[in-house]
């Protein structure tokens, strides 16, 4: 099955060019979704999935458990850029919720509070 194929098989073996899936769009419309954003399915997504194309349905299945955009790309054997467009479509239509990374502090990275929690967590592991 095409969509479940391992990524190694996708590069040369895909019949439809990956960008055809997105009608040539390489940027998500409306909102930018960072690569580490987490995605989950909404109630609307659960109910409405059956009417959608297969690649959208696969993403909704994956979103049953919280999953990052980069992992969705991997699971589908798609470049992240393509996965981003598809996820963006599903977010626009209310099938998915996208949970973006925390806003950055003035220096460009995560806040002191978040870094402190990360440091504690890494030391405790």
């Amino acid at each position, binding site marked *: 099955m095409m969509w479940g194929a391992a*990524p190694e098989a996708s*590069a040369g073996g895909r019949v439809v060019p*990956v960008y055809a899936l997105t009608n040539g769009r*390489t940027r998500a419309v409306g909102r930018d979704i*960072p*690569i*580490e*954003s*987490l995605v*989950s*399915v*909404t*109630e609307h997504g659960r109910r409405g999935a059956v009417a959608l194309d297969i690649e959208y349905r696969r993403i909704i299945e994956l*979103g*049953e*458990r*919280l*999953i*990052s955009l*980069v*992992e969705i*790309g*991997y699971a589908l054997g798609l*470049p*992240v*850029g*393509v996965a981003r467009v598809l996820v963006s479509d599903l977010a626009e239509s209310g099938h998915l*919720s996208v*949970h973006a*990374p*925390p806003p*950055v*502090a003035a*220096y*460009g*990275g*995560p*806040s*002191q509070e*978040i*870094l*402190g*929690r*990360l*440091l504690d*967590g*890494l*030391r405790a*592991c």
Partner: protein
Amino acid sequence: MDSAPVDAGPEAGISVPTPLKILVAGGFGVGKTTMVGTLSEIPPLNTEQAMTEVSEGVDDLAAVPDKRTTTVAMDFGRITIDDSMILYLFGTPGQTRFWFMWDELASGAVGAVVLVDLRRIDDCFAAVDYFENRRLPFVVAVNGFPDTHAFPESEVREALLISSDVPLIWTDARDSELSRSALVSLVEHALTRAA
């Protein structure tokens, strides 16, 4: 299916963990994939990313597209810090021609671990330059290839041309404690920048 710390959406009223990312950069064959694999709780995944690359120095002929698609291999792994935080690790290609990919990965990142093989230090300059210019916190981690401990820190710093405020550490990408302590050093360094 990989396990996720939370298995319901926000509609269930459960808070969603905060996703964070750290980059593991450095030259070809320096141990990026190994380090991501050592640290990750899932088998490290390798994705081939199709990227549009603007070609330079090509005559401006209307019939010749000025962009072409190239493929870049990228490793990624994951560490669940706790119920409220997930850390993603990205092993990124070391060549400067892939800067467009680094931009996306570096945006909002905690920082980067730049792995160095002292036998081929030139390979790390592209990454060091990039993170310095972008002002992304980074640490330089000398990967434990044989004989690397023979060099004193001052000589290594001089050879690497890194400023005194950039932490320089010795690591072994195959060792989970040493690799984790590289991350700890990076986050400590990032905290000084965030303060």
